[in-house]
């Protein structure tokens, strides 16, 4: 029973995948809720303090090495940290849902020799850096899409890039190394080979002295390339109202007048009626 393979199952996502999913989700969520309570000094986009105990999700993904485990990280954050605490921001959460799993999964595949400490440190760092870097670019892009006449205000674009860049460096130093690489170096060897049998799975053996280059998975890299624009769109739609903001500019209002507002209202009313009709019919 305890050594059954991970494939034989009646669950659509696999029994062991479900177990690993629940495990990673619960721990990520708990970690999220705990660090939410810890004091944090945040100054606008700059956050100084305990961001997150990222070593917990990353180490667990390195142990289970499945896409499902990686997907459980943002789901855990959404379910425990956002929905339960009422902070859910709808589409904004989709950004993490696209970005985090692909970055972590890509990094987890790089780990080829579980006993090589240097490799472990690099992998944890890459996971965090990749995710944080893409998120920073998305953040900068969002402000560009959102604030009309951004370029017209002297100094504003530069200051946004400066702030986000400094934030990235601070995050990498505190969260990436302090709460990522260093604790992960302790935790991974302690859990490796112990936690997998508890779920009835084989621990990852790897190959002694294998180089990280062998772990560059084409599929995982493609997934990162694919997820990045999707995450950007989700983030942009959530924070800047998507296409509305591009069309609905003050110049447009000056031409057509504020009365033109009736058009989107009628359109949304029609959409609402259609959705309502479909929902009531299917229920």
């Amino acid at each position, binding site marked *: 029973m305890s050594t059954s393979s991970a494939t034989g199952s009646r669950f659509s996502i696999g029994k062991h995948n*479900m177990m690993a999913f629940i495990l990673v989700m619960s721990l990520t969520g708990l970690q999220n809720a705990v660090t939410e309570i810890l*004091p944090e000094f945040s100054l606008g986009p700059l956050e100084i303090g305990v961001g997150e105990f990222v070593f917990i999700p990353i180490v667990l993904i390195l142990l289970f090495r499945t896409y499902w485990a990686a997907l459980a990280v943002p789901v855990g954050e959404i379910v425990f940290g956002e929905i339960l605490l*009422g902070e859910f921001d709808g589409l904004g959460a989709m950004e993490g849902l696209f970005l985090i799993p692909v970055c972590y999964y890509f990094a987890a595949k790089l780990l080829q020799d579980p006993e090589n400490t240097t490799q472990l440190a690099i992998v944890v760092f890459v996971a965090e850096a990749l995710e944080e870097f893409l998120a920073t670019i998305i953040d900068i892009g969002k402000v560009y899409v959102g604030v009309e006449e951004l370029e017209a205000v002297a100094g504003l674009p530069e200051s946004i890039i400066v702030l986000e860049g400094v934030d990235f460096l601070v995050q990498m130093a505190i969260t990436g190394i302090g709460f990522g690489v260093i604790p992960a170096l302790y935790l991974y060897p302690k859990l490796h080979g112990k936690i997998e049998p508890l779920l009835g799975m084989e621990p990852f053996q790897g190959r002694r002295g294998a180089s990280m280059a062998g772990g560059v998975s084409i599929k995982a890299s493609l997934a990162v390339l694919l997820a990045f624009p999707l995450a950007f769109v989700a983030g942009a739609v959530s924070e800047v109202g998507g296409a509305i903001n591009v069309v609905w500019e003050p110049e447009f209002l000056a031409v057509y007048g504020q009365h033109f507002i009736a058009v989107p209202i009628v359109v949304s009313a029609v959409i609402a009626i259609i959705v309502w009709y479909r929902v009531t019919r299917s229920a």
Partner: protein
Amino acid sequence: MSVLDKLREATSVDAIKTDLLRTAYENEGSFLHRLDPRVLLLWYGIFLFIPWLFYDTEVLLGLLAFVSILAVLSRVSLFLVGVMAFSVASTLVSYAIVTAFTGDPVAAVRALIPFTLKLTIISVSSLAVFSSMGPKTLARGLRSLGLPRQFTFLITYGYRMLPVLFEEYHDLVNSYRLRSAPPDSPGRFRWRHYLYLLKLSMRAFYPMIFNVAKRSRVTVEAMETRGFSHSLNDAASTELQLADLQVRPVDIGFVGGSLAVVAVIAVVL
């Protein structure tokens, strides 16, 4: 008692924990709680877009007032509101400080205010909707909109498990504290003391991981015993679970009423 200690009293972990758990669990009586979850999701979808239609600061302030009233009615946690208010204010201030070096801070803040207001309106309305809905209702609403049951199960699972995990983790931290010696001198601003607590709270996750691993295995096996995977493809079980969801006049009235309020705000201001 030093100032730091007083501050810690007011924002003690226990007080915040209770506040957050109350947000998650005690929303039975609130106004929005009585509405159909699908209608609330639709309402939220509408309010994701409405703020982007306006540029006047007065109209945006009016909308903010409206969603704030709804948030008060659904009894959102003061802690969360405080966190949000602080982050909004500090974002503006930090942009102003940095632009003071690179350009005109007043113009920058003026350009950012409508944008920030819109984001605030959206976050307040999501706070109102999602803290009043409750994970169980939300799970059923999403299920009836076609989300896979595995995912909606996880929402309700989290809802049940969060307090248990919280308690367990707190106990672990306390037992670690009992078994270890705090630093001899707390140091300036008690930094050694806080570092010690931080290290401890990280180490307490180690036994926690094993506990959760055992629990998740038991959960999955118990679900399988009770036919979870069998019921996934069973239409009758879905129908039974969603039977008491229905859109009533009060739901339509709520959506229509809030649209009317938005129209009034837009016309009057």
